[in-house]
């Protein structure tokens, strides 16, 4: 009697022993595995903000030199293990932990077998994605395929990068065999498909320099005829600028898309947590204290002036047909007296138009309107896989030429002879501001030359420092030259 008196059962939550009891609960657990995918553009510490900051196309910007210290430190290559925002390490591992728990529990869940297999495949594809981000950012990471417990959590050691890559390949290969080709667009879009897993696997092979395998996977995604609809239903959008229309979610060019919603009524108190469903990049890239004076100027909500383009990038893109969709030149408007705004840190006046919100995009619901933008972002889109396949093919041959031509033709550009240099240029112009540039430069080995003036040191800055906490009392070793 006494014992029962002091026993209190959790309310509104479940004891882990009793969860994973049916299909609905397995599905909720799967959603939690998807949750960290939102890191691409969700929360202040998002992937786009970090990866753009370190590339030659952008400055971190913001309000001042200490606004977003970890971003600034990556931008000028003064990153240390203390400055490395730990969420870039922790969040993928949270996804991995949840995938590991679900994969362990799934066999015992009484539910439809096909769905069970699909949930397992999605968990593996997501785990592969999280490990891919970890290994290409931090290189030397622990490879965990089972949830840890309090007794063994300090015994973990870092795996060899090739072992991590091998696991990623295995997870994706397993997943590809099970994942559906298409999903119900109204309720399921955003979930992993066979095409998404193949595109990711192709990209992984490319980073491993397994070019033949990369080209093979990417060819399946891209289809036999570049520019035509592929067997998975992918096709380039006719208008480049349509890619950035907020309502144009899950279009035919989208392969793996990260999702956002205004309905989360996100607020500062849980900004960046699992409950925050808004896109933060939108407010980050906006000009500070923006004021429209002339009706011909765009009607922008104010933002925080992050990720402004460099003058060098402007010079590169200024004659490209993608310029206007990519970049908003506020210098012209300001000089013409059509607008006013306050210059942020290292302001160039060139704002990242792909993610610049417009006044009608501002949420009218609850929470902080700055945190409730709903634009999705592409993790992988077709133009990217076209150019990756061309790169995997070594930048030569008819197929590579056709892939490159298709990307250029869509924006009205004429063919140029295919070469690695042409592909590099095309990627820079096509994918500007989408978080790929820094990884591209490192993969090509061009980073020391391009980023040297920023402070990039070859042999050190290709990987990030492991966050300080991870080294406390653990068996983990810091990455080279960061001690």
């Amino acid at each position: 009697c006494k014992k029962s008196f002091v026993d209190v059962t959790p309310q509104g939550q479940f004891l882990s022993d009793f969860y994973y009891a049916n299909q609905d609960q397995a599905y909720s657990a799967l959603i939690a595995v998807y949750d960290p995918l939102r890191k691409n553009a969700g929360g202040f510490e998002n992937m786009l903000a970090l990866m753009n900051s370190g590339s030659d196309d952008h400055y971190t910007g913001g309000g001042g030199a200490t606004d977003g210290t970890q971003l600034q430190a990556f931008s000028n290559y003064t990153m240390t293990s203390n400055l490395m925002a730990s969420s870039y390490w922790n969040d993928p591992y949270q996804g991995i932990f949840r995938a590991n728990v679900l994969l362990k529990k799934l066999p015992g869940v009484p539910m439809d077998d096909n769905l069970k297999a699909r949930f397992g495949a999605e968990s593996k594809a997501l785990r592969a994605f999280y490990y891919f981000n970890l290994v290409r950012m931090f290189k030397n990471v622990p490879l965990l395929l089972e949830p840890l417990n309090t007794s063994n959590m300090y015994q973990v050691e870092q795996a060899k990068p090739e072992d991590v890559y091998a696991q990623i390949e295995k997870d994706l290969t397993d997943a590809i065999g099970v994942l559906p080709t298409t999903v119900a667009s109204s309720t399921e879009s955003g979930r992993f498909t066979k095409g998404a897993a193949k595109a990711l696997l192709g990209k992984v092979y490319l980073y491993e320099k397994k070019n033949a395998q990369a080209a093979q996977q990417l060819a399946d995604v891209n289809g036999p005829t570049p520019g035509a609809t592929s067997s998975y239903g992918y096709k380039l959008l006719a208008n480049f600028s349509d890619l950035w229309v907020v309502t144009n979610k899950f279009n035919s060019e989208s392969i793996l898309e990260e999702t956002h919603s205004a309905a989360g009524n996100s607020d500062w108190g849980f900004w960046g947590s699992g409950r925050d469903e808004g896109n933060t990049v939108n407010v980050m890239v906006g000009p500070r204290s923006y004021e429209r004076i002339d009706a011909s100027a765009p009607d922008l909500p104010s933002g925080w002036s992050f990720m402004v383009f460099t003058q060098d990038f402007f010079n590169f893109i200024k004659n490209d047909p993608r310029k206007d969709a990519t970049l908003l030149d506020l210098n012209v408007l300001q000089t013409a007296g059509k607008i006013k705004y306050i210059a942020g840190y290292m302001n160039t006046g060139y704002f990242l138009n792909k993610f610049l919100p417009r006044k009608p995009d501002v949420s009218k619901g609850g929470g902080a309107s700055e945190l409730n933008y709903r634009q999705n972002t592409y993790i992988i889109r077709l133009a990217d896989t076209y150019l990756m396949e061309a790169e995997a093919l070594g930048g030569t041959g008819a197929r590579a030429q056709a892939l490159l031509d298709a990307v250029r033709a869509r924006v009205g550009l004429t063919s140029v002879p295919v070469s690695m240099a042409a592909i590099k240029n095309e990627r820079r112009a096509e994918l500007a501001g989408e978080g790929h540039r820094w990884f591209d430069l490192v993969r090509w080995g061009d980073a020391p030359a391009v980023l040297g003036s920023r402070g990039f040191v070859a042999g050190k800055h290709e990987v990030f420092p492991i966050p300080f906490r991870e080294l406390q009392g653990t068996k983990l070793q810091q990455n080279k030259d960061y001690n």
Partner: protein
Amino acid sequence: QDIVVTGKVSGKTGEPLIGATVSVKGTNEAATTDHSGNFTIHVPNRKALLVISYVGMANKELSIPENGTLSVQLDEVGAVGLDEVVVIGYGTQTKKVVTGAISSVKAKDLENVPSNRIEQTLQGRVAGVTIAQNNGQPGSASTIRVRGMTTFGEGGNNPLWVVDNVVVDQGGIGYLNQSDIESIEVLKDAASAAIYGTRAATGVILVTTKKGKSGKLSVNYNGFYGISRANKKLDLLNATQYATIINEKSVNGGGANVFADPAALGAGTDWQDAIFNDKASRFSHEMSLSGGNERSTFYLSFGYQDQEGIVAGPISNYTRKNLRINSTHKFLDIFTFGENVGYSHQKSVGLGNTNSEFGGPLSSAINLDPITPLVITDPAIANANPYSNNPVIKDPNGNPYGISSLVGQEMSNPAAYIQTKLGQYGWSDDFVGSTYLEAALGKHIKLRSSLGGKLSYWGGQGFTPYYYLSATVKTSQNNFNKSNNNSLNWNVENTLTYTNSIDKHNFTVLLGQGSYVENIGGGSSVTLFNLPITSYKDASFNFDIPQANRNSTSSDLTQHKLSSLFTRVNYNYDEKYLFTGILRRDGSSRFGLNHKYGVFPSFSLGWNVSNEAFWPGNQVVDRLKLRGGYGVVGNDAIRDFGYLSVVSGGFNYTLGNADNITTGYAPQSLDNPDLRWEETSQTNIGLEAQLIKSLTLNVDYFIKKTSGILRPVTIPGYVGVSTSPVANIADMENRGIDVELGYHKSFGDFNLGVNANFSYLKNKVTYVASDADFITGDASFQTMGAITRTQKGQSYNSFFGFQTAGIFQNQAEIDAYKNKNGDLMQPKAKPGDFKWVDINGDGKITNDNLDKTFLGSSIPKYTYGFTVNGSYKDFDLMVFVQGTAGSKIFQGLRRLDIGNANYQTKVLGRWTGEGSTNDYPRLTTKDDNGNFTNMSNFYLESGSYARVKLVQLGYTLPSKLVNRIKASRLRFYLTSENLFTITKYTGYDPEIGGAVLGVDRGVYPQARSFIGGVQLQF
């Protein structure tokens, strides 16, 4: 069966003695006289002797009168204090047989002190109890530590408050009205606190409210009115000084002058003037009635308090109304039924950030540039960006409040900020009460059942307009929020007491059982957005707002349950040899299956040496008692289900092209079924003495050890859980000395009383299970990161940073600061920069933790207080001084990441050239040396202070005059609260509470008040 004796105790001139003790000799039975000097006591038999005692008066022993009523006059000087009744939890004892370290504060010490909260009244009055008001906002709570830091957790260090047998959390103590309090006892050592087992590790504060006394109806009124203002304002730069400093800083950083002609800027805006209220009013009315007959007594009171804040008056004030009904009834000779019920309604309006560097009126007033005008009167500016195109706030004349273009981020014009917060308030209704039935079964056995409860309702409401205070401080929509919460705590306790005396063996045995449930309830909150109004005056929930613009949340509390069995034996032989033993077993819902129950034993011994026949009857040491004890107590102030990994929602993701959010569920943390009790053991050795008739002395030495401290641990991120699990991770020790002194003597018409207390405390962490032998501290500051660290061998949360070794006066000194390889230690340094000590001796200064060291603790080593009471004929004077010494304060008033933030005038003593100063570095926009951005001893100041907390002059009208209006007493008084403070500290106020003491981010300072009051008694 019992005989009831009533009576009145008065002094030499017939004045009633309030708080005199009447006890039955040789037993634990005792009573205290009320406001009129009246008492009621149960006497076991006709042969018993009554002992009447009062501070500063000689004891009297009387036999039981035939008619059961007594009138006693005491003569001055005699036994002091030792016969006072002390509440010990589930019973009382006379002080002379108490074996634990218990400090007691009686009604007579409190009743003249104007105060809004009981913690402030207790401050400086009890040795071993450190109290720091969290901030000066009216109605704000205090941080209380009994014998130092017991544990690491945030709420874990707060003592257990027990009001008339009901456990009341500290946040809820604000409902108490000071005049209703009969006594406050602090159980400091484990030997006395163990009777509250589970939750007693941090000390127990027992509050007993007043009971009615049989006899004449007594009516009391006490009221006061006062004016408050800030003790001190900061010396900040004026506009000319500011421009000069900013120019110098810019030029030193390689830039150009920012301001062409600083002198032309004049004095500029004094932002502090814009928010400080020098005429903040406060008043209080308290009224009580008490009386009864032999069967029933009652005490009834009503109080009303109102206090206006000294900062941002319109959004900083507090009112409280309270009501109390206490009564006891006797029936069928053996039963006593009683109840104590208090109700209060509190309404508080707060300015938000009371100790934060992130905006709000105080932080903005400190950091804003003095150049920006308070109000824009120039129409050309007012009609241009940003004033013309944004919902800026305007003053009553229609002019917009100035917006700084130099200082941004969270800082905003405080006068405008105040306008955006108008009409916002928080409220609470608390009902705290207990009822009991007591049965006296025969001479020796007493059975008591009690039911106690605390029912609370609280919430808040406020309209936030659509506003633009700066580019960063703004809203895009207005909103109106209302929240409602409720909680119920209840407990049932049954005790059986057996008291007997056989020959000279006196003993009391207590057996008890208790069941406790807390946090039954929940809350909800609704916010409407985009209301079609602009002023809080029009805000209403009746507006028809579309569903998309309604946000609501709701939650349930998690119950906390305890089940307990306890026993206590009090024994003494002829009042010479004393023993107390306590055993309590508690089960708590907060622990895992493997360690759900804890057992907490304690014992203590005492020896009244002066009762021995061999004790010489000298005139120096009249009485002497030695005592000592040891006990173990627990602490379960951790979060619920800390031992479990629960699967919870909130790991959501958006799927589908309709932006539908799906809730994801995942395990939050890792299981820890072995989570066990945190235990605090304490050894206490004490001495009580009465010297030269008039002087009492209490000295206690204690060693308090806490083991298995519970705390969420930051585990490696690769584990992948989103919430840190709780674990037993550290041990800590506090050693100290508490001294209490009393002196009472009359010199003709002049009476003098002095009460003084002094404590010494040393806190040390003795073990940390974390992998690095330290825990990153709980306090952090802006870009510095953590500024404290908890490490073995150091005080809990000690300040941790760089150590400066003066300032490089010239390049030669920089060049001379080399390591053994001949490399410069600080190659980036320039003359005027700090020289940092190479703590780890590796020949380089690195901005990680390797060159940081421990720089001091914010826990005061010494705490003291003393009260001097003097009276001459009808006049009385009281002076109360309180203070602490031996602590450090982190002076973090200035925002480091806002380059143009204003400075205190001490910046004028910065380094400007060789030989100018060795303390304050040069100013530059390129602080490569980290002079200002490094945590270092530069930011630490002594937190020692002595505060004249209270000075009161009173005049009591002669009885003859008073009797004409049928009153028994009429007294007028003038009081000054916080008259002045002696300190070297350069911030507003050295008294800074909080989870980590002594971190000043611009704390709301305490008020200095001047008060006039009247006390009337019928």
